[in-house]
């Protein structure tokens, strides 16, 4: 069924796409290792965050926290804000986003297009500073509704109820699930669901490693771990820098024709690392990874052009 009552209703059920060329070559008769991409850019506003945003708003409406005409507050580097802005517009809420100033220009334009108000947090603090500032603003404005994706169980639940089951339905042979680690909602929710179905499935996190500006002034005692994070759901966790992420995003584009955002490159890098380990171990594998969004919002960085260099991402929150 591809007919829906509204844009929101078309959420999820994103395609799981095989990567015949990027999956490692194996000799005939040897166990096969296959890579599968779940294209989350096919959601209503073009990212996996539509699942989180709709779930958090639905939950806040159900529990009575969110009343008609209310103002929603959220720290976001882009995608969650864009999802929330669209839904807020359609359902008649106002949205205030706290966003680090070192994010791409397209993300600001999209937020403003759907009527969101943006409060910028300093580049040097990265996302931690956006979270800190948003928590402060929430205290100052008790009538605003602070959804807070890092600690809102509706975020994890969205992936437990949709992303995980969709993957399981499409590929019950799955051996590895690889996704990005931000709020941790995708990994905690879909990872938990898949593990319950088959405890042997490895759940692997890829987190972006930024340039020094982002970590620079960080006080080690005031770090940040999302409230949703539960390390027991994960099997392994990798840190992937801008160079490797950009290299993989270009590979995905050139070899398989998939135009993904930069953070997907970090996830693919981890997925390919796992694939190579499986080959070396002589094990067959079905490795599912998440394509978080498409590359449109990152064109202005210039990394997709032939001579596009990951150095331009230094100091930016590219994922």
């Amino acid at each position, binding site marked *: 069924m591809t007919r829906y009552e509204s844009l929101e209703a078309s959420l999820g059920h994103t395609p799981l796409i095989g990567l015949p060329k990027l999956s490692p070559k194996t000799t005939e008769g040897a166990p096969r290792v296959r890579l599968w991409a779940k294209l989350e850019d096919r959601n209503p506003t073009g990212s996996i965050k539509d699942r989180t945003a709709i779930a958090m708003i639905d939950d806040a409406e159900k529990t009575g926290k969110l009343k008609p005409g209310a103002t929603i507050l959220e720290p976001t580097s882009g995608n969650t804000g864009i999802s929330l802005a669209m839904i807020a517009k359609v359902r008649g809420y106002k949205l205030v986003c706290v966003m680090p100033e070192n994010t791409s220009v397209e993300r600001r334009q999209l937020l403003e297009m759907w009527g969101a108000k943006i409060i910028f947090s300093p580049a040097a603090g990265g996302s931690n500073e956006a979270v800190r500032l948003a928590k402060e603003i929430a205290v100052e404005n008790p009538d605003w509704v602070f959804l807070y994706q890092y600690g809102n169980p509706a975020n994890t639940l969205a992936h437990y109820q949709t992303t995980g089951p969709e993957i399981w339905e499409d590929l019950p042979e799955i051996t590895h699930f690889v996704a990005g680690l931000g709020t*941790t909602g995708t990994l905690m929710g879909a990872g938990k669901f898949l593990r319950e179905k088959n405890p042997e499935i490895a759940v692997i996190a890829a987190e972006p490693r930024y340039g020094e500006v982002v970590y620079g002034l*960080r006080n080690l*005692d005031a*770090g940040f771990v999302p409230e949703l994070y539960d390390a027991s759901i*994960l099997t392994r966790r990798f840190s992937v820098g801008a160079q490797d992420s950009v290299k993989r995003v270009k590979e995905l584009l050139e070899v398989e024709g998939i135009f993904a955002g930069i953070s997907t490159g970090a996830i693919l890098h981890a997925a390919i690392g796992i694939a190579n380990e499986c080959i070396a171990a002589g094990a067959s594998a079905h490795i599912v990874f998440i394509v978080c969004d498409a590359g449109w919002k990152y064109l202005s960085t210039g990394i997709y052009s032939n001579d596009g260099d990951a150095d331009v991402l230094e100091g930016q929150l590219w994922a």
Partner: protein
Amino acid sequence: MALPTVEVRIPTILRPYTNNEKVVSADGESLSEVITSLNTNFPGIGDRLLENGELRRFINIYINDEDVRFMGSLAAALKTGDSVTILPAVAGGRM
């Protein structure tokens, strides 16, 4: 036999301990031994990484880009040529 030698990447916030060196070397067969070796060369740095004999909550350490908490934490094994990266925990991407 000599202990494995690894390179350790130091975050900006800890460089006052390493005379502002971004990358230093250390010896050890395990992460725990590497941290002891670091602390011998750069006194005080060990306390910034460990608390009550455990990795501090807001410190992440990676061996060849993999998080040591999933590799045995302080017992994680090292071999010569491995790269150890120390980073503060951050609110991650795509938020």
